[in-house]
């Protein structure tokens, strides 16, 4: 795999300077650079994290507090004085106010899980089979079939949502879980990535099993899959995140609020009720924190997957 051998060259290009400085001057200069670098790192990290900090703390405090401490900029612009779970109770429909507003994000959160998990399960099954076919099996004109699959890598995504909707409607799948699962049960990205992983597995293992009279399916289950677990974890992670974060497709494919996914529901909620900032923060946190936690836990796999396939999921 391309990325594995790239990691051998870590720590490139820090070019030592030819210098005549004394040791103390060198130490001071190095120390200064280290401090500067630390400050720079902190500033960059903050730029990328501040929206999340504001969102998460904002979801845990009273609305009046959010506005009251906005000016002037201070610690309490972000950090709550009085903590509360009120907004989460509201959006999950556990409080009277939430019930009155017809909020039940727990249900939509569950829908997001069902759809994302469903796609990952189907995708693991069918893409693994497909990648095994391309990496291992003999078939006439196999390169043509591979081209047929890989050309779809270049089918632009958002631009083809309306055409996809026309087909899904024709199949009468619109407004169902299936509409959100079926179009993604095979993925050219995942097949492409898995072919790379499978090719790293020595073919002698297959051959030995074939001579013992094992079927293709048996070889796939007992030889290939156990040895490709890191690759399978990686693609599952990318796929889960990709489906979890989809917005445009569920927005047009599903109208029924009971089966709608969380991303779409938080959007319609905010456009309708611009004033409920606490609930909006809480809903956004609910929709993003699960994938962020999964990502932080499995970051190594994630980075490797993106670097290997060149896609976001």
């Amino acid at each position, binding site marked *: 795999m*391309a*990325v594995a051998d*790239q990691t051998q*060259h870590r*720590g*490139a*290009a*820090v*070019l030592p300077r030819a210098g005549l400085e004394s040791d103390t001057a060198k130490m001071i200069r190095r120390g200064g650079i280290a401090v500067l670098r*630390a400050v*720079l*790192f902190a500033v*960059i*990290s903050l730029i*990328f*994290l501040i*929206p*999340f900090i*504001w969102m998460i703390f904002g979801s845990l405090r009273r609305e009046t507090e959010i*506005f009251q401490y*906005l*000016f*002037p900029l201070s610690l309490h612009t972000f950090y709550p004085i009085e903590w509360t779970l009120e907004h989460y109770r509201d959006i999950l429909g556990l409080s009277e106010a939430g019930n009155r507003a017809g909020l039940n994000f727990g249900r939509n959160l569950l829908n997001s899980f069902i759809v994302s998990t469903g796609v990952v399960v189907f995708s693991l*099954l069918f893409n693994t089979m*497909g990648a095994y076919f*391309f*990496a*291992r099996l*003999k*078939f006439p004109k196999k*390169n043509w079939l591979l081209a*047929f*699959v890989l050309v779809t890598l270049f*089918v*632009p995504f*958002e631009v083809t949502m*309306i*055409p996809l909707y*026309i087909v899904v409607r*024709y199949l009468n799948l619109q407004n169902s879980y299936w509409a959100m699962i079926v179009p993604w049960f*095979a993925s050219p990205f995942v097949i492409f990535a898995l072919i790379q992983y499978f090719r790293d597995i020595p*073919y002698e293992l297959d*051959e030995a099993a074939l001579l013992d009279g094992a079927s293709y399916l048996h070889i796939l289950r007992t030889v290939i899959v156990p040895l490709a677990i890191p690759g399978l974890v990686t693609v599952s992670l990318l796929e889960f995140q990709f489906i979890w*974060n989809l*917005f*445009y497709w569920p927005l047009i494919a599903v109208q029924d609020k009971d089966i709608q996914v969380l991303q779409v529901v938080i*959007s319609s909620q905010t456009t309708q009720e611009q004033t409920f*900032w606490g609930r*909006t*923060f809480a809903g956004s946190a609910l*929709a*993003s924190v699960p*994938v*962020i936690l999964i*990502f932080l836990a499995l*970051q190594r796999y994630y980075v490797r997957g*993106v*670097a290997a396939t*060149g896609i*976001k999921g």
Partner: protein
Amino acid sequence: MATVTSTAPTIQPAVRARGIFSWRNRQLMIAFLFIVPALINFTVFRYIPIASSIRASLYEYSLLRGLRDFIGLDHYARMLNDWVFWDSLKVTALFVIYKVPIQIVLSLALAVLLQRETVGAGVVRSAVLTPMVTSVIVASIIWAMMYHSQLGLIQSMLGAVGIPRQAFLSDASRALPAITVMMIWKDLGFSLIILLAGLKAIPHTYYEAALVDGANAWEAFRRVTIPLLMPVLMFVVVTQAVFSFQVFVPVYQMTQGGPLDSTKVLVYYIYQQGFRFQDMGYASALSVVALIILIIVSYGLMRWLRPQT
């Protein structure tokens, strides 16, 4: 495939049947079953949509009333005089032209800064990647609140350095740049990962050779890093241009195409025609044109950025 060596049937020839049910054909059929589900998926949900949108673009077509009269190329002719369409193309192009170069330069600088794998670099990398794993819709919701003309966090930050409140998303000249900043923040992690992998693939000996020749850090960067990174940079530019050309969600959530159509990008216009105005035929024609533009743009970019060897 190169890796597939012969699985020649060495097992007793006597067992083999003749004709289409021969041992060899059975093996081929079994093999084919492995790829059938994926082929069905790509045919039905990738190829047929494109074909059916080409067909739908030639008809009067709405979701309520279905396919009606065949009107040939009328939708395409209508596009020529549809100034909203041309405007949306311009807005889309502006977005891509603002976003892609800035994002590439920033992520290249970050990649160089973070290429030594220290603890600090790991923390920064995690921070930069967090927006990337968040959905565009959540990013759009939170940023719309940060940009809020009265209660936005950015107003408070500007206030801290003495700048009065500014309108962002409700100002026709600032809305598109505001969305661009948000999307750079969101997508930077993606180009960073790819460029970091690209940097790691450059053998250290190349830098040593440059040093021996008396190059300083900047010269080494310009003469060694950039040329060797060119294929990776090209890949990032093309994929980012293609992704950015299709921007939809932030416009849908933050501005609804406004103010004064200043953020009405092409995909949002297609959505409007199809779902707000119920004109699926015209929306399909627009999708077909967008598809053709994307093919031309990505092909052109690849030709233009091909490393000169």
